[in-house]
């Protein structure tokens, strides 16, 4: 219930203790301000890390081959392992129940690409239609390569948005022809990738076309899969880890590679990496909360301190009130309300200042690992809740002390 007299008393008391109130308010406000900024940046880090993983599907498994580092079954180390179509077909068949998207890829590193007088070097991938989903690419214009392109070994290309800007200079590329090492490919689509410019500087053509046109035979450079994700993230990580290990073992056997050779067959599991990074982000977030709460506690101790001083200074008044019929609860309520008000007011000031600052500097932060630092509504609500609890905690001991003072003792206080 709104009690104007109670509020008049609170303001009167605060007026009498201006400097202490200001300094206490400042410590609470700065505590909340620091907490909001820290939480904003922890969310920024989370967004940054998330966007790093958005380059590709989080549940992606990619397999590369290199040279053996250990001798095995009479074969010397340093032997080059070449992945082929049959490796891909075998794995796709064996793990069909667990895999969502799959693509074998043949890569042409820094291929010379021309359109009219414009030219540049870009990475060209001979891939399967699923690769669009594995790479998290969005088709902005036209379409991605399909089964028909693959079966007909069509000379079609899907170019990244950066290539469109570089070579076509505002012209519509769909239906136009680009030349890759002198072979003409018809542009059928333009894709966008959340990974940014680097990811948008590539060209996708059908795997069969790439192998035939660029002397690939049945060779492939890597294989990419995504795992079918169960509802539970941790179970997904476990499944992904098991498949990773099984594929690695199987490929090593197929290519006669020592089981402990870590150079010849490399299987990268995005999900496992994601879990590690997300765990790290969680730890960072926890540390930020810890530091923020610590600063608030310092502020709360300040409020508690000033309330103790105020109670001490008002001992006689408390005695008078008790003599006139004030019950202990009304004294407790008076002190608590004052403490909560000081904490809430200064805390809200810090909160608004912190949110305002994040709003202003958020868009200016240009860093791959910190993106859109901001505090969501729930977090802001949590900090307000923390403020009320903190204020009540700060006021509790002084209020308890005030309620316990015997009226006659309080009245004798000078």
């Amino acid at each position: 219930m709104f009690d104007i007299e109670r509020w008049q008393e609170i303001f009167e008391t605060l007026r009498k203790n201006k400097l202490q109130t200001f300094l206490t308010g400042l410590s609470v406000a700065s505590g909340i301000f620091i907490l909001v900024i820290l939480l904003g940046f922890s969310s920024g880090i989370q967004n940054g890390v998330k966007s790093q993983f958005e380059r590709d599907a989080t549940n992606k498994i990619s397999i590369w081959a290199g040279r053996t580092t250990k001798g095995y079954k009479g074969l010397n180390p340093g032997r080059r392992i070449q992945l082929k179509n049959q490796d891909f077909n075998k794995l796709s068949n064996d793990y069909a129940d667990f895999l969502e998207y799959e693509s074998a890829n043949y890569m042409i590193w820094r291929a010379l690409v021309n359109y009219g007088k414009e030219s540049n070097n870009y990475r060209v991938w001979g891939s399967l239609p699923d690769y669009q989903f594995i790479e998290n690419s969005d088709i902005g214009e036209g379409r991605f390569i399909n089964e028909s392109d693959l079966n007909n070994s069509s000379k079609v290309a899907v170019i990244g948005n950066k290539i469109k800007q570089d070579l076509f200079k505002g012209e519509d590329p769909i239906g136009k022809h680009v030349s890759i090492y002198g072979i003409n490919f018809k542009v059928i689509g333009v894709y966008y990738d959340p990974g940014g410019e680097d990811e948008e500087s590539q060209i996708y053509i059908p795997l069969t076309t790439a192998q035939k046109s660029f002397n690939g035979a049945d060779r492939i450079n890597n294989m990419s899969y995504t795992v079918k994700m169960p509802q539970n993230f941790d179970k997904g990580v476990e499944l992904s880890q098991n498949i990773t290990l099984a594929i690695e073992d199987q490929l090593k056997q197929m290519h006669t590679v020592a089981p402990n050779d870590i150079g010849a067959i490399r299987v990268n599991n995005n999900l496992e990496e994601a879990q590690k990074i997300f765990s790290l982000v969680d730890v960072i977030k926890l540390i930020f909360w810890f530091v923020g709460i610590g600063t608030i506690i310092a502020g709360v101790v300040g409020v508690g301190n000033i309330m103790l001083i105020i109670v001490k200074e008002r001992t006689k008044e408390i005695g008078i009130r008790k003599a006139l019929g004030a019950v202990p609860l009304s004294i407790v309520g008076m002190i608590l309300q004052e403490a909560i008000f000081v904490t809430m007011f200064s805390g809200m000031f810090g909160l608004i200042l912190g949110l305002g600052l994040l709003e202003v500097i958020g868009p200016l932060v240009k860093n791959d690992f910190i993106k859109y630092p901001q505090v969501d509504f729930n977090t802001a609500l949590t900090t307000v809740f923390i403020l009320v609890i903190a204020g009540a905690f700060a006021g509790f001991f002084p209020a308890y002390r005030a309620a316990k003072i015997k009226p006659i003792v309080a009245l004798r206080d000078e």
Partner: protein
Amino acid sequence: MIQIKDLHKSYHMGSNSLHVLKGINFNVKEGEMVSIMGSSGSGKSTLLNIIGILDEADSGSYVLDGVPIKNLNEKVAANYRNKFLGFIFQSFNLINYKSALDNVAMPLYYQGIKRKERIEKAEYYLEKVGLTPWLNHLPSELSGGQKQRVAIARALASNPKVLLADEPTGALDSKTSQEVMELIQGINDEGKTILMVTHEHDIAQMTKRIVHLKDGVIIDDSPVQQVRASVYV
């Protein structure tokens, strides 16, 4: 109105103990005006504080308006103080950041009375003590006599059964003391029971009965022919 039997009170300071009240037996009838006299340390203020439920006796019994006052928790004690008793202190004990009006309205606040009604009642009692022009003044803007009048109005505001005054003229000059006593006598004339501690014989003579305390014991309890305060003016 007040029945006290074999009341004892001691104060303990470390290993020392000071027996302040040593078996007080004492009754006050409704409408009486009694002064308690005695030298410093005789126990008169302690007795008044126990009657005012601001302090507690070690043993003995105290009945206020038929209600035994013993082992009360602070909430019940606060309610009894608010309902039965009005206090007038030597040092006025006004809240210095509240106006005369708000000071007088304060006991009514603790009775849960709405602000409008509180203000009306407070205005009535301030008018009764002749302070209508000073309603909105802070205590710091009032003279000693005016402050004590505000305190009297505050004591009357909750319409208590008994007024307890601890040296009500102790901080006032003689002329103002007479004025305040005249006011208190008038309140008694209207039927209010008044119990007053004083060490001034002239002031005690203005009540109807004087109880003398010495070393925690009542040595004399006799009626006096009340002297009207107006005679002194």
